[in-house]
């Protein structure tokens, strides 16, 4: 299945993405996508993790994992719904643009709108949420732009580059979501 956006498409996280993971997990994107992790990780270790993840997903692991690609088919990152709780219709979102050249160009935001729309309009989630570390200004600005609500600022939660940092938790309820089309309009997103 493909979710078609303006700047990117969300596609199955297949081989083309597997091959990029070694670069993505070792570069700066992973520091921001996680909470300040700086991996030094081998190709074989990446491969092992990919195999373990597939096995987990095939045995009922509750997650939806997309690759993000540009309109001309270049893999640039991954977006996912993790920790899906069907009973509460609640899901945590995970996101990373692994190619730093594609930061700040609206690619990640376009992918986020696709994912949120998918969660609410297709999967009937009640709520989606995510957490990031307080130094992550790029994501904090993005959350404000797309209408997520800051629900908690948990103090000194993580140790980042030699000091304690807060985590910020953002949530979006389905009733607050104006729909993808309205959000594209509001943000002025345009196809290249």
């Amino acid at each position: 299945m493909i979710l078609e956006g303006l700047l990117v498409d969300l596609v199955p996280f297949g081989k083309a993405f597997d091959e990029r993971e070694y670069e993505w997990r070792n570069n700066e994107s992973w520091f921001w996508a996680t909470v300040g992790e700086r991996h030094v990780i081998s190709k074989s270790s990446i491969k092992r993790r990919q195999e373990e993840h597939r096995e987990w997903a095939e045995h009922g692991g509750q997650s939806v994992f997309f690759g993000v690609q540009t309109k001309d088919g270049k893999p640039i990152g991954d977006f996912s719904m993790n920790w899906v709780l069907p009973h509460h219709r609640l899901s945590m979102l995970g996101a990373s643009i692994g190619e730093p050249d594609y930061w700040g160009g609206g690619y990640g935001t376009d992918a986020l709108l696709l994912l949120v729309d998918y969660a609410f309009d297709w999967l009937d989630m009640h709520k989606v949420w995510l957490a990031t570390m307080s130094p992550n200004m790029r994501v904090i600005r993005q959350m404000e732009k797309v209408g997520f609500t800051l629900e908690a600022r948990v103090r000194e939660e993580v140790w980042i580059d030699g000091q304690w940092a807060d985590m910020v938790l953002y949530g979006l309820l389905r009733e607050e979501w104006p729909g993808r089309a309205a959000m594209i309009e509001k943000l002025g997103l345009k196809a290249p």
Partner: protein
Amino acid sequence: MLEGRLVDLVPYGDRYLEREYDWHNGDAWFWATAGDREIVSRGAVKRHQQEHAAWRAEHPRPTVMFGIQTKDGKPIGDIALGLVWPQHRLAMLGAGIGEPGYTGGGYGTDALILCVEYAFRWLDFHKLWLGTMSLNARVLRQMEKVGFHQEGARREAWLADGVYYDDVIFAVLNEEWPGYEVMFERAGLANKLKGK
């Protein structure tokens, strides 16, 4: 064994596994989770325990799980440091008093402050946190008594009995923790102990 005044914390062994069937099917599970009402057979409990043990053997985690017992040795619940994140010296507290007659008597609070003391003074954690649904008035009061800070509320996170409730997040930093003895007094447990 961690010795408190109302309860002791002991390894979570067979005597506790035997009680899980009742505890998981009882009201305690509703409060300890986020409104889950399990209807679970003895066979399913046993299977789950076996699978969990096998999984844990293959995937070692730094989780710490205690059984809570009264001073005369009766198992009444469990308390754990879960989601342990060594790099950030952070853990989530999880707890349940499974035996219906032992809520409100200070047992759970004594277990909690023992576990916090252990995490801060022995394991040198930087922070402990927990989340509970906003419906859970008993835990909200307890959090106030033991000086945890409410850091936020994730709106409408948990569906319990057909209504969405917030997930209220509480936390305490190591530097804020006055120690077991001070907290035993402050939380009013001395009076609970006198009344027994």
